[in-house]
């Protein structure tokens, strides 16, 4: 089966600095991929390349066998690649539904006027939250919500856009233990819905709990890419620090 996304021999240079050195990566349908590595290992560069923020210096990028070139994140979004930012993309002073539909509001015609269709947006948002099995109420303000519910709002946004790959950048950093469990449950829901998720995380337990495969980056190179059950936290730690060279 053709992988959903295939990156081959990706090189990304920033001046004299080689941020990605000959990285090849497949993302399969409906899998959760854990992407790990120390700061500066090239995780963010790789993710930004997938999401269209960066164009690779060399190498190829295919989506379902079709070569793609993204000139910006909007191009990638059109192909169903969405990024869930930890805090960036939520307005605390708006309701959950308003956040889900921000920038793509449903409207209805009242006489000569086009007005927000609050009811339809609330119903659709409620459906999305139910799919994610989240108890987020569409008409509640986000500022009253837990970290997990906020993640649900951000994820529901990507579901609205018929996404195929969701990139999650440190979604479990700086939230409570109970909320981490909520976020991990959301990631499983997305997988059940047939989505591919790339989880960038520093938290070993999260990656081992929810991911199917783990990829480890070090100094711009991919040093490991294996099914999660064939690895261990000890091995991954060794790979990240360089104590183990390649696995």
């Amino acid at each position, binding site marked *: 089966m053709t992988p959903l996304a295939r990156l081959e021999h990706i090189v990304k240079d920033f001046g004299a600095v080689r941020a990605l050195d000959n990285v090849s990566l497949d993302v399969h349908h409906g899998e959760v991929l854990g992407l790990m590595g120390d700061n500066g290992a090239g995780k963010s560069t790789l993710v930004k390349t997938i999401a269209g923020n960066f164009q690779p210096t060399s190498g190829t990028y295919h989506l379902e066998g079709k070569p793609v070139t993204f000139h910006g994140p909007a191009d990638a979004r059109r192909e169903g690649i969405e990024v869930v930012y930890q805090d960036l993309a939520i*307005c605390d002073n708006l309701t959950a539904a308003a956040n889900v539909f*921000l920038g793509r509001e449903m409207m209805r015609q009242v006489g000569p006027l086009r007005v927000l269709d609050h009811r339809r947006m609330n119903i659709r948002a409620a459906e999305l939250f139910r799919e994610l099995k989240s108890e987020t109420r569409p008409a509640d303000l986000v500022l009253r919500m837990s970290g997990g519910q906020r993640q649900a709002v951000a994820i529901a946004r990507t579901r609205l856009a018929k996404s195929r790959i969701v990139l999650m950048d440190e979604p479990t950093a700086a939230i409570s233990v109970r909320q981490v469990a909520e976020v991990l449950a959301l990631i499983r829901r997305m997988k059940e819905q047939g989505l591919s998720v790339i989880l960038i995380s520093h938290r070993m337990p999260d990656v081992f709990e929810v991911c199917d495969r783990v990829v480890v980056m070090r100094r711009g190179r991919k040093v490991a890419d294996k099914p999660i059950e064939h690895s261990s936290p000890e091995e991954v730690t060794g790979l990240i620090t360089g104590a183990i060279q390649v696995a």
Partner: protein
Amino acid sequence: MSAPNDSPGMEIDLLKGSTRSFRSRVLLAQETWIALAILVLGIVVSLISSKFATPGNLLNVFQNACFIGLMALGMTPVIISGGIDISVGSILGMCAVSLGVVLNADMPLVVGILVTLLVGIGCGAFNGAIIAYINLPPFIVTLATLSIGRSLALVITNNQVFYEFGQATESIIALGGGYSLGLPNVVYALIVGVIILHFLLTNTRWGRYLFAIGGNEGAARLAGIPVDLIKVSAYAFSGFMVAITAIFLVGWLGAVTNAIGTGYELQVIASTVIGGASLTGGFGTALGAAIGALLVEVIRNALLIAGVNPFWQGTFVGSFILAAVLLERIRSLRR
């Protein structure tokens, strides 16, 4: 596609606005508290002096409050978007002076109104464009235009007072100073303004995007909202409301001096903040701005009637601003 519900009853309350009842939401609203303050203040003052609760004085209070209220309505979208416009007093001066010049040249009232609106919208859009596209802080930009606007008003009038309005003399005075069905015309303007702004804020994309920008500008940009354009439109709307105010105010006063509107910006911002708008952006209502303006005016009037030295007015208005901000802080803790 719907997954089985794991918690019974979830579906029923999913669409409810909030778990809070209508009653507790009304109790939490800043507008309720301000209205209550107005009522208490009114009762106290009418016990002190029989001059307060006369129809003549109450109408006077209403009318005065409307001029500030109309400008506070304009200020509301700006503050919701996280900005501030301290140039409104000077824009009012520019608008009034333009109206004076045009009518003094014996032009019809319609032309005068159109020119005034264009000047107001133009000044606002100028503020907004510098703030949004050159990315300078709103406070500094509008501080500059406060100075520029007042100076230009002096330049245009050459320190003259206009009280001859040619063919439009009667109609402008009837519009700004006249009554319809027993109430000053400007009261209707404020009521219509509140209804329209409330609709715009709660039911249009424009309103939704203002709140989004005030809440998290970065998120608004990521969502593809034309942030800069919306900001410009907020300041232009403020200028538009100032122009409307200028038309009624000139008609009511029957004359234009170049000092018109000096110092109004503080009362306007005070009204908006007392009415529940947050200076950090993201919150504010049309009704709040109008009620806030009414409270400021009731305080001023009450002090006069009660025979308190008018030098104390600023102290009282300032205390209410502090109280309003504290109230907002307490409410946000309870949210």
